[in-house]
């Protein structure tokens, strides 16, 4: 796995998006060359080869390696002064950036109107550690192409949004240790004969604008046509309205879609590795260390397994949580 990872992560991770299919491959908001809100590729725009962000830094970076936790977790409500956690505590709530249409990870529950899922529970875990109350969480829905920027701008404390940790993003933000391993697949109509994304040459494949999934479609040899939509929910709408032939992104997100549409199926093997990490500002590394300590505790005391069981249990037995790597 590791060996396969290196080349893939190096070149493709940027494209596929760290967010589990949804790497934020859009430029920084303060970059002069490109508009930050760029929904650059309009629907239907074919972008073969638009994915050349192989920056030098990418080569010798382990995107899975995060900052080592600094000792044991402080008691909830007793954050060391001067730290970002103390600031969050003083504010009274943790601001989590996520999406509201990624079923199982962060989607709006139509019954309650609340945004919930695996990613949201990661945020709730952090809120629990800071306040002793998982509900002290403010959810801010952000576009896939705004995930890095919302951290850079300080609009959110942490982004947990099926975001792939990759080296390009590591240059702008810090990532927590990996909390989920995903990989890109493709979703097609139930009666499709395609065996994998290679069989979809010339077909329209949808992905969220600003996601690495979108960029990855452009690198497929059979040259499918990449179609960008604002979110993956919009992709599923386009799929059901016959505007696109397929959707390609992280298998977990596709599973959430297939669960909503019995006439769709997920095909092929994972053709990328998408390790999900939570994005945090480089301005306060103590918070990243804190989050890593929270994740460490969750891996050990079974919280991670329970959360997996709760949201993803339907896909099989709970696997081992991804092991933490530190630099």
């Amino acid at each position, binding site marked *: 796995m590791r060996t396969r990872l290196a080349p893939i992560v190096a070149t493709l991770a940027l494209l596929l998006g760290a967010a589990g299919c949804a790497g934020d491959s859009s430029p920084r908001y303060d970059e002069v060359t490109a508009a930050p809100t760029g929904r650059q590729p309009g629907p239907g725009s074919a972008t073969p080869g638009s994915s050349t962000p192989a920056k030098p830094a990418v080569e010798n970076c382990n995107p899975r390696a995060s900052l080592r936790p600094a000792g044991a977790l402080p008691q909830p409500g007793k954050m060391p002064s001067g730290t970002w956690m103390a600031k969050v505590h003083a504010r009274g709530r943790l601001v989590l950036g996520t999406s509201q249409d990624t079923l199982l990870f962060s*989607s709006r529950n139509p019954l309650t109107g609340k945004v919930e899922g695996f990613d949201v529970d990661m945020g709730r875990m952090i809120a629990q550690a800071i306040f002793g109350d998982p509900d002290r969480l403010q959810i801010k829905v*952000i576009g896939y192409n705004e995930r890095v920027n919302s951290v850079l701008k300080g609009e959110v404390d942490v982004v947990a949004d099926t975001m792939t940790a990759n080296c390009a993003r590591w240059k702008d933000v810090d990532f927590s240790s990996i909390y989920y391993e995903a990989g890109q697949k493709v979703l097609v109509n139930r009666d499709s004969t395609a065996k994998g994304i290679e069989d979809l040459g010339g077909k329209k494949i949808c992905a969220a604008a600003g996601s690495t999934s979108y960029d990855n479609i452009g690198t497929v040899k059979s040259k499918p046509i990449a179609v960008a939509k604002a979110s993956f929910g919009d992709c599923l709408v386009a799929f059901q309205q016959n505007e696109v032939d397929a959707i390609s992104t992280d298998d977990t997100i596709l599973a959430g879609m297939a669960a909503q549409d019995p006439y769709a199926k997920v095909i092929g093997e994972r053709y990328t590795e998408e390790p999900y990490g939570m994005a945090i500002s480089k301005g306060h590394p103590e918070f990243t260390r804190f989050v890593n300590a929270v994740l460490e505790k969750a891996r050990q005391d079974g919280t991670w397994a329970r959360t997996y069981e709760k949201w993803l249990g339907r896909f099989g037995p709970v696997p081992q949580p991804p092991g933490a790597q530190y630099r």
Partner: protein
Amino acid sequence: MTTALAQRPPATAAYSPPSYGLVDRVAGLRHHSPGRLQLILTTLLTLGLLTGLVAGLTAHSASAGTADLGNRAQPLMVEAETVYSALADADTTAAQAFLAGGLEPAALTQRYDDDLARAGTALTNAARLVPDDSDAARAVAALSTGIARYSALVATARANNRQVLPLGASYLAAASQLNRETLQPKAQALFRLATDEISAGYDAARSSWWLILLLVLSVALGVALFWSQIYLSRTTHRTFNVPLVAATGLFAVLILAVGVLFANQRTHLDSAAQKGSAPVTALAQLRILVLTERADEALTLAAHGSADKEEDFERASGAIYFDDPRLAYAERFTTTLKDRHEAYLTIHGQVRKLDKSGDYDGAVALAIGEQATTTFGDLTTTLDQAIDNRKAAFTDEIGDAGDGLDLLSVLGPLLAIAACVLALLGIRARLEEYR
């Protein structure tokens, strides 16, 4: 016959000598009395018949213009505004139903259904009122197709929501995008076209060019009548030519009727513009703006941080102006409107404050709660009342403006013909004397 025809010179060559001869002969008439009488008779008959004809046409044009304004242009504007506000309200209502979580509240579903029904009816009405193959007709056609697509998307969203699939929210977002980015601009374009048609309609109803022509003809006829009677009383033994005096009287009645009817029409048209069209347009614009505010509030909350429509909200608020001079005749509503809008703005401020401080659930609860719904409902109800009130004023005035014009378009020419017959009798009696 055929040979004779064939031997004829070309038509152009054949015409010039007789035309010279005609002018010459007509000019020669003025050298002797019967000739002069013939000239006077011809002039009076020509001017008289022309005046009658133009009076009839002017009355017809003004009557048709007034009817068009009242039966078509003004209703079209109202229908266009209804389409727009119903669409905007449907969008807001759908977003609020979505905010509420769970199954959409029955009241909101009802309101959404009513909105779509209102938009559909207004569009059907508008389709009858737009000229064929005009921009307005194209906008109506595009709206009909678009509304069908919109309601299909919302229905799919509901079906998904019914099965607790989050996909419903994505369908709703797609529907909202279609509504806001395609349908509402089309409805607004239709509204603008209709507003333009109203000002064109007022011009058509006033029929100013026809009136000027009629005025010129009347003056010419008056001068001709006066002068011919002077001539006759000088050259004959009678001071008055009775049939000619009677003809003059008839023409005077005709001109007087035209004057009175058109003065009445213009007064009422001005009133209709001031008391009806202007306030209705201003109120319609206000309704669009307040609905925009409410929609922006709901959509900002629905986007949950991913799209902030507050700037758009402030733009709409900034454009709301209850002291608009056009609202002078809706004064008894403006104070209430102002108060109710202020009350809504206060609630909106609280919603914003809650949302900003991180209490999203509190913000949603307040935004779609009883207090906000009632306050905003009161505001739109008052706007509806004000619009209905001004529409009624317009209908009254436009009805009065059209009074008598149809009658004039028939009686005018008849009166002129009768006067011409009298003039013919009067002058033929003098002509007989030379036989």
